[in-house]
């Protein structure tokens, strides 16, 4: 056998071995992975809403990069998992230790009656997606939105929200509202900053100087959309283990998040 033939056979064999190895690593054989945290069946799934981005939010200049395209995944998945650890430790909710990403392009979202969305000033819905989210909320689903700041973000958020719930009024939540007293009594709330506080010492971003605890209710007065404007709870969960991030912010973020989950599971 000539050398080139040996080399060719060796290359083919090596290629086959690598292909087999790669297949073994990624292929789903349908068994052997039941113990994976992502396969655990639970009552509660931390569900993060993945949405399409509204390009106009970037001034029409097409910042269509990673941060724009994947705006929904800010702090993902560390914030989600840190929060689930706290939920597991502090409540009796039977939650899966890993997050679940849900979208609005199919009915799978109806299996997850509690969803969390960030950077919602960037979201954009088709009519079908808006209808699906409206039905989701009116049937009993609960949406918590977080991490958008200032006047412009608010308007962009509301553009999407008006498409989903055109006739619903947004109201400011009083401290005595039931949603702040389901598990913890959160009376004295503060503005919860993102991790930029470590670098800047500012609790606000853009012109969002005051925290806005807001909500949209259904016909029976139950909160269906909990709005955390001018704050960033997701970062507080994500950076809770950073010694430079103040503990009071993180603690309160956890308490509010848990209150919102218990509210969503009881109202």
């Amino acid at each position, binding site marked *: 056998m000539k050398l080139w033939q040996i080399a060719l056979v060796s290359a083919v064999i090596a290629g086959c071995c690598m292909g087999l190895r790669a297949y073994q690593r990624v292929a789903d054989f349908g068994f052997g992975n039941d113990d994976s945290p992502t396969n655990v*069946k*639970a*009552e*509660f799934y931390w569900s993060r809403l993945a949405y399409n981005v509204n390009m106009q939010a970037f001034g029409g200049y097409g910042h269509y990069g990673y941060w724009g395209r994947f705006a929904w995944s800010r702090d993902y998945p560390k914030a989600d998992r840190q929060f689930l650890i706290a939920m597991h430790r*502090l*409540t*009796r*909710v*039977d939650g899966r230790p890993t997050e679940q990403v849900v979208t609005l392009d199919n*009915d799978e979202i*109806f*299996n997850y*009656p509690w969803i969390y969305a960030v950077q919602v000033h960037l979201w954009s819905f088709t009519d079908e997606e808006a209808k699906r989210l409206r*039905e*989701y909320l*009116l*049937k*009993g*689903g609960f949406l918590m939105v977080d991490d958008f700041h200032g006047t412009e973000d608010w308007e962009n958020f509301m553009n999407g929200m008006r498409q989903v719930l055109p006739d619903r009024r947004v109201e400011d939540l009083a401290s005595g509202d039931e949603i702040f007293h*389901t*598990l913890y009594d959160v009376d004295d709330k503060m503005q919860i900053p993102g991790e930029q506080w470590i670098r800047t010492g500012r609790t606000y971003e853009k012109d969002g100087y005051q925290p806005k605890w807001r909500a949209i209710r259904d016909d*029976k007065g*139950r909160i269906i959309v909990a709005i955390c404007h001018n704050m960033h709870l997701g970062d507080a969960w994500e950076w809770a283990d950073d010694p430079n991030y103040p503990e009071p912010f993180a603690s309160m973020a956890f308490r509010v998040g848990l209150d919102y*989950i*218990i509210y*969503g*599971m*009881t*109202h």
Partner: protein
Amino acid sequence: MLLSTWPKWLLPVLILAFSAGLAMLVRRRLRDASPKLQTWRGWAVWGMQSACVALILLLLWQPAMIVSALSSQQNIVAVVVDDSRSMAIADSDGETREAAAVATLQDGILSGLQKRFQVRLYRIGNGVTQLDGLNKLRPVETATHIGDGLKQLAAETADLPIGAIVLLSDGGENTAGMGGSGIGVDAVQSLRNRRLPVHTVGFGKVNRAHDVELEDVSVASSAIVNARLTATVSLKQDGFAGQKSTLTVRDGNKRLAAREVTLAPNGVLQTEQLFFSAGTAGAKTLTFEIEPLAGEENPGNNAMTLPMLVTDAKRRILYVEGEPRWEFKFIRRAEEDDPTVQFVSMLRTSENKIYRQGISDPSDLADGFPVRPENLFDYAGIIIGSVDADYFTPLQQELLREYVDRRGGGVLFLGGRSSLSDGGWGESSMNDLLPTFLPSGRNNFHRNSATVELTAAGVDSPITRLLDDPAKNAERWKKLTYLADYEDAGSPKPGATVLAQTNAGHRKLPLLITQNYGHGRTAIMATGGTWRWQMSEALGDPSHDLFWQQLLRWLVADSPGRVTASIPQRVLMDEGHVQFSVEVRDRQFQPTSDAHVTANIAGPEGTNALIDLTPSRDTQGLYQAEWAAEKPGAYLAEVTAESTGTQPQALGSDVFTFQRENGIAENFHVEQNRTLLEQLSSQTGGRYWEPSDLKNLPRDIAYSEAGISVRTTNELWNMPVVFVLLLGLPIAEWLLRRKWGVV
């Protein structure tokens, strides 16, 4: 009896001796007799000879019979003619029943009776009154109370020598309720005490030619607002088999529901169900009607009215949940739409925190699940979610058992990771409460999808009725989106009913199981995943909420309050006498006789009465009163109880309705009730007569022990039958011998 002075025992001895002697003689001679006689024929000859000898011996002992006979013209025969409206029906060869009865009497029967007895004429309807002549009869009485009337007759004529009663009637008896039949025991006994035979003469056709009749309507006497109700309507028809008619229920002029029914074969009792909503709160008079068909003889029996009370009183349900979960949320939301329920919940959000919702006072459930009966028994129903049995102390477990058994409450157990067998309920003292035998182990809850289907019992159950049509309802359940999870609840206990089951893999598991326990009821809904019916069905689909509202209404509907009032019948037919019974319990649901109980009654034409109820001497906590509803119409009674003493405290109240109807029952069961007339005559020593067969009545009626009678001894030797037998037996033997050729 035997008149001879010879010893009576000698007669059977001699009969046996002669028979035996003949038998021996026959047997000895059979050997030499013709072969034909050596078979059964020989013994037939022996039988006839023995019978002949026995008859001769019997006559030697002088048999006789003692009979009582009414003395001529010293006794009275009461001729009683039914004077009720049903006697105006013209089904006796073109004339009315009453006209036929009068004609029968005038056709020699009355004169025949008058030759032997004094005759008094009476008419019977609501009561009995004496008549001067037959021309006074008018079939207008609104009811027929045969039993009560004859009892009244027996009492009023106690000092008269009544020898017999002749009753001419169609047998319609209203005392036993709508068109009911049966003469009261006390009426029969009063006739028997006087040995008064009642000879009945029946008029009217026994079978109807063309008629549709409502036989009965069964529907709850009370309901909560907007409850979905089922009325079971029984009907019979003759002459319209296979035709279609419409069954309706109305509240006044408002039609609540209607459905087309196909009439069953002639004379067959047909049962149909009608579904309707109770509507708003208030006392209602429901009219159930089967649409009259062309050519119907009696359209007056096509409708019935029943009173019903629709209340908006809130019933409290306590939901105990061991962990936050979606089922909790969506059951709560379903019940928030039910105005008749106050939904109280306690949810363990963390190991040491309980989140309470729906409480009336901040102190409610502040210490967790109640430990005192007066706190727990205030709830009409309890739901136990994913909670370990160990969460309840032994005292609370016993309280829960008493809650169902003694207080009469309802408990629903849900499936979950800490429910049923997985929550250790099978090993707890509360296992007895459950309607199933739980499986062993603690791995019977599965977070896997499962579809649902109804069982045969579930198809007919109001709990699982999402659609009124049973077939469509069963299909709807099959098409419901799958459950998020299910639990193996084991096998149903005897007496439990499985209404729905899950298709989990290749297995069918009971899903919804109900049973009665003590004075209350328990159920299992072996899943925590019905919330998907809300989230995954179309927006506005009522399946989830409707099911839970119906299930929880069933759970609490029969849970009694501390004061519960009842009456034997809610429709009083042609008589207003009514007895109220009220059970009063204290806060621990123990019967109390230390109460002041009053009933405030409002009725038609401004009727208003306030009566005190008196405690029963036999039953503690029971209070009774009798009252008369004089006017026809609907009545509403509110019963209130308060403790006695210097500072009376309200113990509770209850409201109920009843209705008096005049002349309605007479429209039902208008065919001749021959069975009743035959029973009445046979129970009193009389006889049932056909109108065409009455010529012997004046003679036969003379044999009676009532009135002034003489006892005569009649010897039997000269009866024609004796001579026929004495001649007939030897002749028959001779003829048979001739036939067999062995003369």
